[in-house]
């Protein structure tokens, strides 16, 4: 009796062969009925209980998908056969190759009914065109060369650019890590902290900045945001290590409003 590993290897080879066969039928336009659907399904069904890993299940799904494409081709073939336009393709091809060009052309004229498509300019479109022409600038004005002037290059420093906010003084990821460390230190015994308690700052601008950076902490897997709708509360829960984006089970968007009035009420509530 073959070991499980050998059986899986054999199963994969069978599925690959099925996929290749279906792809040949599709791409090369072969007779779709070359594929015995019942036999192929039996093979897929036989090896299905052995699959455990995602790659193995994907291979199985691909084989089924390719088989479904072949079944569709078989269905199209039957539909075509049943229409009045069906005729033996080889016979038709032979006739086309053997008939002279002129005879074929004359024959074609007997079944060709060209479309009537008249074009005519109207007085309205002429008036529009004249108006456009009158407003159009001459080429010599439209195709002017772009004026270039030589400029002296001035000097500046990194500090000046930082002051002008053209250059960022500190990397954004530094701010992110600083806030993340602060979050990790401020959580309670349950490992979480109220969202509003964490983002609130002395000024409105600082509160917005903290909320902005906190949104990145949650988006990029540094922390989780728990929403308790009944209590109308939100809690931040930091991770020890950032969790990669793709490993999260479900991604949703959550809008959080931080108006000036709300911030003021929050401050008054905390101070009171």
């Amino acid at each position: 009796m073959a070991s499980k590993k050998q059986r899986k290897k054999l199963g994969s080879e069978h599925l690959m062969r099925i996929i290749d066969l279906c792809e040949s039928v599709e791409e090369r336009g072969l007779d779709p009925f070359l594929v015995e659907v019942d036999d192929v399904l039996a093979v897929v069904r036989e090896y299905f209980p052995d699959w455990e890993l995602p790659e193995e299940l994907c291979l199985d799904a691909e084989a089924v998908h390719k088989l479904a494409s072949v079944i569709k081709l078989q269905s199209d073939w039957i539909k075509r056969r049943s229409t009045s336009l069906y005729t033996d393709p080889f016979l038709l091809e032979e006739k086309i190759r053997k008939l002279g060009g002129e005879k074929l052309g004359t024959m074609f004229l007997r079944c060709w009914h060209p479309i009537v498509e008249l074009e005519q300019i109207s007085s309205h479109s002429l008036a529009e065109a004249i108006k456009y022409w009158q407003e159009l600038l001459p080429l010599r004005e439209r195709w002017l060369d772009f004026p270039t002037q030589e400029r002296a290059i001035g000097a500046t420093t990194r500090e000046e650019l930082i002051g002008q906010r053209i250059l960022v003084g500190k990397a954004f990821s530094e701010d992110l890590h600083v806030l993340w460390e602060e979050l990790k230190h401020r959580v309670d015994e349950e490992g979480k902290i109220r969202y509003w308690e964490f983002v609130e700052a002395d000024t409105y601008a600082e509160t917005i900045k903290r909320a902005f950076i906190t949104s990145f902490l949650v988006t990029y897997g540094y922390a989780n945001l728990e929403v308790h709708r009944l209590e109308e509360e939100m809690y931040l829960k930091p991770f020890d290590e950032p969790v990669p984006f793709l490993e999260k089970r479900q991604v949703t968007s959550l809008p959080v409003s931080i108006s000036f009035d709300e911030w003021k009420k929050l401050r008054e509530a905390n101070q009171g």
Partner: protein
Amino acid sequence: MKRKAYYTRKVKQATHLLFYKHHRKPGVKGWELKKQLGSDYPKVLDILDGYLKSLDLQVKTVFDEETPVEKPTRKQLDRARFFITLRGDVAPKEAKMMGWRIDDIAGLAIAISYILAKKGQAPRDEVEDLLRNKLPGWRVDVNMNRYIRSGYLAEGENKKLYLDWRTRAEVDQKTLIDLLLGAEEQ
């Protein structure tokens, strides 16, 4: 009299819409006719078709579906495209006046017939090889591009040729196949 005047006015409107090119492609969509002529536009088109008979013209309907529809629903009609085409045949002299040489038409006939024989799609190379048998290479290139630009043929993925909207509107495919099968070889 009122009813007659109503339909006379509608038929005139339909003539303006169908005879003249308003878009990149000729013809008018069903929903456009419905908007301009009203929901009884199929009746207006039937009346117009009656008038056109004596002029050897007809109103032709081309549906979205590739195969002709026997009893179309209103939805299918609204999505279909309507054209005015010649009802009868084109004499070879008349074809020349339309700007078609006989070998251009023959090339088109071969391309369409071959694609029909290959169940609706054929590799472009194969069609060109067939044409190069009897036409100079440069003519084959020019004509193939003309057939595709005009809308007789379409080129899809993997350089495969299909029959396009103009073939479905202008060419009676069943008659073509019958003529081909019944023809005596040279």
